[in-house]
């Protein structure tokens, strides 16, 4: 038998025929494996739920509920709820999105956490998989500050993987807030409306009352930096003209911004304000602005951002930020030139420049208020 000759008709016929045969095979395999794939997926999900919660005997997959893009599973033993598993995620990983499963006890305490999917750097960020995450077990986020120690929280970051550690905390925090908002409120009303409770549900009710108390206690915080916690006063050397006090202690909060006051011999020499904008290209941009006592800008610096390296991150560079030096926002319009203001935007980073101006503007308003 020899190979058939090529001609347009034969080519079309041959290709169609072979495609049809192969697609039929593919179709058969697809239907044969469909159920298996679904089961495998469910089993994997169930395994993860089991590993973050105490033993349960219902099928939590049936109780899946989605709030704010997070999926919650309720685990029960008999009739009493023994915990919630939450599939949560964060966009703040070093390599973008990663997701975790967090198990909560009915009172909101973290039982265990586990990584579902991650793309962090092998050997650095991926060390989240090791025993590191056990530090969260048994912690109640109402009392436990879910930020890394470097930022003033209670969490030991993985060394050389601060961003991954921060993102992990962020994902847990998201899950916790959503749980409090959407589920535990409900759990509370259910238990109070049913007088015939078993011991466990009574416990649950008690526990949720405790949470309420806790959150009330935790809510009115004393004046404490809300945006960013600095550990060392040397950060203010560039921001405030010569000072001899400790601005970290001379602190107040205005319009939700953190204001540090620098004094020399008791006379105010300047204000340093931590301000932020959510208008950045990568979300939140946090800056530190130093004002002289007369209201002109002394210096600015980028504290934390998520902007594109090499483009948006240039707003932290001298070319951009030096244009603000000595300018008084009363005379200098804090808007980019394309929008009628006085600020030269970084080319290729209009968003970041805009966000920087936005944060500066907020800081100026807070400054005016603080000066009164």
């Amino acid at each position: 038998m020899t190979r058939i000759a090529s001609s347009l008709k034969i080519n079309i016929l041959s290709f169609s025929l072979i495609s049809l045969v192969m697609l039929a095979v593919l179709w058969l395999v697809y239907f044969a494996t469909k159920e298996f794939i679904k089961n495998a997926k469910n089993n994997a999900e169930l395994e993860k739920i089991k590993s973050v919660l105490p033993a349960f005997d219902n099928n939590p997959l049936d109780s899946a509920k989605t709030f704010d893009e997070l999926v919650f599973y309720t685990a029960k033993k008999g009739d009493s709820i023994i915990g919630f598993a939450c599939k949560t995620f964060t966009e703040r990983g070093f390599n973008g999105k990663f997701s975790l499963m967090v198990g909560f006890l009915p009172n909101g305490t973290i039982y265990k956490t586990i990584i579902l999917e991650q793309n962090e750097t092998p050997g650095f960020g991926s060390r989240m998989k090791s025993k590191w995450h056990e530090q969260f077990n048994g912690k109640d986020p109402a009392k436990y500050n879910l930020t890394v120690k470097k930022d003033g929280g209670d969490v030991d970051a993985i060394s050389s993987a601060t961003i991954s550690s921060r993102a992990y905390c962020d994902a847990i925090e998201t899950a916790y807030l959503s749980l409090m908002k959407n589920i535990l409120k409900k759990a509370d009303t259910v238990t109070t409306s049913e007088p015939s409770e078993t011991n466990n549900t009574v416990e649950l009710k008690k526990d949720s009352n405790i949470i309420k108390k806790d959150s009330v206690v935790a809510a009115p915080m004393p004046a404490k930096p809300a945006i960013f916690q600095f550990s060392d006063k040397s950060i203010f050397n560039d921001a405030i003209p010569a000072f001899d006090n400790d601005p970290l202690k001379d602190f107040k909060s205005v319009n939700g911004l953190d204001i540090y006051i620098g004094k020399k011999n008791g006379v105010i020499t300047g204000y340093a304000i931590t301000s932020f904008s959510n208008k950045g290209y990568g979300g939140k941009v946090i800056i530190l602005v130093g004002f002289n006592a007369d209201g002109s800008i002394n210096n600015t610096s980028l504290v934390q951002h998520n902007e594109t390296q090499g483009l948006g991150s240039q707003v932290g560079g001298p070319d951009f930020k030096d244009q603000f030096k000595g300018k008084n926002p009363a005379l200098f319009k804090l808007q980019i030139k394309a929008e009628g203001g006085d600020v030269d935007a970084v080319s290729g980073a209009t968003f970041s420049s805009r966000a920087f101006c936005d944060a500066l503007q907020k800081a100026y308003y807070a400054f005016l208020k603080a000066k009164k």
Partner: protein
Amino acid sequence: MGELQNFSKGILKENPVFIMVLGICPALAVTTSLINAIGMGIATTFVLIFSNLVISVMKNLIPDKIRTIIFVFITAVFVTIADLLMKSIFPEINKALGIYIPLIVVNSIILSRTEILANKNKIIPTFFDSLGMGIGFTLALMIMGSIREILGNGSICNYVFVGENTRTILVFILPPGAFIVYAYMIALLKKSLNNNAQ
């Protein structure tokens, strides 16, 4: 005799990864652990054997001018099948390999084998040749995978044998480590084959 030679040449003498330097994208990218390497090797072997067999059977029905497009089509169908099977049987490995499973479609070993082997040979020699090449590829990946996992992660088959705080040689898990291991393997194999020939 002929079949045995067809089979064995892919393992050492014409090893696709170390001698022919084909299909090195998956060889470098997925060999961060032994399990991944085995999974990738088996999936590729499966696609290699079945697409070559089907092409070998159908070769007289495939007009010469459009052969490549049909080869790629048939390969793509088997890659999808391999993906579906892996998802149902080994979902964990499938997740770990991610995009590299669909990318088997453009694996150069498969493209070259369909062209120079299945396109011209009968079904029996095609089968043994593909099997040999597949095993050669799998072995090469396993060697690289175990070296990188042992040195870089201090574990083998996900069984960790070093203490919790031991510093492993991280570079072997990272992309540069793949190139280092790969270069040493090629050099070693070349040297030992040359010694044998003399």
